[in-house]
């Protein structure tokens, strides 16, 4: 396969202390993005704004989970540390006669010397078809994680999983870059440290956590929503009447293979109010370092509703607004001559005013 090279401006690097490792923008993302779009030219294009939800911890099946009743008290540590966060987002822009057009974007946000900064990658737009999905995914995966082509035993994802899988690839790459470039900092991930899923192969995440540890970083993964329950109650609802900030430690979590949890799971209630989140902390760290990481986060970042501002900003910055979706649709229509068509809404055609199906959700 020959990928046409488009003139792309030199990519800036992070402002963090640089390592010798490659932190350049994922060139293949750009190349594959443009290549896939070139093959979609002149196709009719059905608009769609349905967003994909990344799967969180639904695949986990905690059978013997327990929550330690005594909370771990936290004392914010004011010593200055860089707090950095990663998040990605994906959206389906529309359908073509052979596939779909999706957009992916990622953001790194960090707080240094009291100021927030960001580096945002994308949007990258892909035309995904049944024919090219394997090629697109494997090429990206092998390029960014130095894995042999088609290494992942799960193989290429299903057509409908492609948006989240490509976004997950970008997210892992951004996480890897942070873990390589940041030293003695706090790295915040969106989601859990569960691996062994198609989105998160064990080797990827293990490598990222190991690199982060080597550089003295602490990885904290916040899940916005969890379905994990103890005695039928969500773990984030079982909060003792104590003054926050505190952590509740969990024990006895066993996941069904091939799922592997690479972190220790806590319930974090970091500010007043009834908000608490599942927090996974790199399990290879000593218990003291784990607590120290959270205390440094408390001393260095704003926390609102128990959620770190840096991670909130990362999420906000990568999320696509309706305006951007329109702009990207305009881009593919103008630049790649994708013809926009309006396919009839079958719900409306068949059921008239009662056809309040997906199109109204």
């Amino acid at each position: 396969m020959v990928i046409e090279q488009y003139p792309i401006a030199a990519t800036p690097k992070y402002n963090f202390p640089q390592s010798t490792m490659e932190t350049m923008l994922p060139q293949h993302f750009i190349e594959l993005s443009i290549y896939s779009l070139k093959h979609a030219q002149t196709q009719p294009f059905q608009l769609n704004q349905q967003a994909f939800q990344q799967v969180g911890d639904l695949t986990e099946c905690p059978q013997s989970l327990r929550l330690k009743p005594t909370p771990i008290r936290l004392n914010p540590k004011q010593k200055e540390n860089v707090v950095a966060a990663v998040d990605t987002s994906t959206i389906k822009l529309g359908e073509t006669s052979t596939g779909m057009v999706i957009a992916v974007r990622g953001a790194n946000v960090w707080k240094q010397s009291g100021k927030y900064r960001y580096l945002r990658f994308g949007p990258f737009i892909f035309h995904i078809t049944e024919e090219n999905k394997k090629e697109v995914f494997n090429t990206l995966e092998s390029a960014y994680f130095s894995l042999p082509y088609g290494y992942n035993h799960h193989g290429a994802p299903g057509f409908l999983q492609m948006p989240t899988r490509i976004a997950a690839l970008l997210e892992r790459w951004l996480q890897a870059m942070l873990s390589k470039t940041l030293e003695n900092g706090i790295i915040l991930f969106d989601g859990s440290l569960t691996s062994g899923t198609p989105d998160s192969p064990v080797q990827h995440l293990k490598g990222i956590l190991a690199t982060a540890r080597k550089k003295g970083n602490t990885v904290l993964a916040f899940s916005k929503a969890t379905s994990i329950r103890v005695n039928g109650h969500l773990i984030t609802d079982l909060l003792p009447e104590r003054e926050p900030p505190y952590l509740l430690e969990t024990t006895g979590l066993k996941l069904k293979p091939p799922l592997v949890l690479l972190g220790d799971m806590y319930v974090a209630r970091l500010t007043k109010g009834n908000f608490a989140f599942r927090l996974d902390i790199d399990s290879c760290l000593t218990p003291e370092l784990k607590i120290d990481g959270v205390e440094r986060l408390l001393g260095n970042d704003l926390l609102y509703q128990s959620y770190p501002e840096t991670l909130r900003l990362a999420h906000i910055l990568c999320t696509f607004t309706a305006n951007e979706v329109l702009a990207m649709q305009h881009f593919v229509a103008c630049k790649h001559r994708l013809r926009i068509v309006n396919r009839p809404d079958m719900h409306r055609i068949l059921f008239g005013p009662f056809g309040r199906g997906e199109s109204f959700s």
Partner: protein
Amino acid sequence: VKLYRKEGNVVHVLSFPNETVEKGDYLLVEDNEARRGLIAQVIDVQFASIPGVLEELLRSLPDGGDVIQGQDIDPLGIAPHITYIQDASLLVCKIRATVENKNLSPSSSWLPSRSRSTVRKLSLPTLLELAKINGALPIVLGGTKDRSLLTIDASSLDGRLNIITGKKETGKSHLSKLLMVNLVSYKATVVVFDLNGEYVSLGMTPDGKRNAHHNKIHVLTPSQNFKVALRQLNLHVLLGILVHALHLPGTSAREFRRIWQALREKDALTMHELGEAIRNWNCNQHVRDALFSRYHALVNSGFFTDNIAEATLLEEFSLKAREDGGALIINLRNTSAIDRQIVVEYLLGRLVESLTSWKLKAVFLFAEEAHLYLRETYWDDIVTRMRHFGIFTTFITNQPDTIRENIYRQADNIFLFNFTNEHDLDVVSRAARVDAETVKSIARDLPPHYCLALGKVVRDFPMVAKVKALDVKTMGETRLFFKEANS
């Protein structure tokens, strides 16, 4: 530009940042299949309601209100497309006409195809040609935004009631001078009630030399070079002055009529004889007192003379003006409020006389701040009776609420300069020849010296022009105390 919506006579058009359309511009919405088009005027430019814009703006200011610093790696170059969509604007346009085979009709009842229609800017020269806003007697009002000239026809002012209004120092008097000078050049007779002495130098160039209009401009200053003798007057003109300007009661007016007849029979119609007659007249003391007080008001005005050589013969001007046209400037600058009313009553009475007897064909009357000298009943006269005599009035004011609502309703042409005050705009928007939204939206944003022409002069296609400069000595400038310090 894309047609988005039509509601009644309003169309909404979507415009993108690379298309420069502004308020006042005309658009042609052409449906080629229907072989018809809508001519619509942009009356407001708004941001298009793009979903997600609020989130976009909020996202850029999360860091305690400061813009968050960062860098976007945007290899596909999507950012310009985001800006393009975000800056899209919605043009709110009023439909002015339908064009079919180059013929215009005021209809807006049909619906052009949204998908097939093309929308393009209609240049003013094309619109002027389509609307046939031209004629044998062109008056160039000024330049338009697209650097063409807005030319109206003098005949569209003929027999019409006009209003020139706008804030102070926006160029109202300048426009009235321009209209006046052009009317005079087409041999029309013009009378100006010049409240501030702004028109007295119309016959001069800015450097004080005589200009082309010099011989046609006649400046009359009451009690100086403008005096009248009683014997030149008809009784009803003088009674008009006494009753309307000096508020003489009816009983006293009846006695005055008798005194007048007695003096006329004796051929003794002089101010001196009138005073003597009132003194010696056999009548109630209160009536005599009332007559005497009015008599002294007439004497004190200095406007009346017994010296017939001093008296101004308006007939002379009428004769001259009838042949070659001309402007009679009544300089009311240093005239008191009562004397102003006396002069105006006299002049209007004499004009009606001259017009009734066909000594004059018609008169274009320019009245600045008319509420300061025009009696209540004249307002209705002007829009009804006077028009039939051939007095075609142009009111000039910076206080639009001083002109009655019925005048606005019947005004044929309105030349509107900038107004920002909501109340002023409300008053002007009562004019029948244009919708309130157009007036309010366009007039509020007019720069100084730009005028929105409404009505018959522009065939009901509201147009904006920068009023052109005149080769005359302008006298309407405000006298300033700190002028030297600021220059």
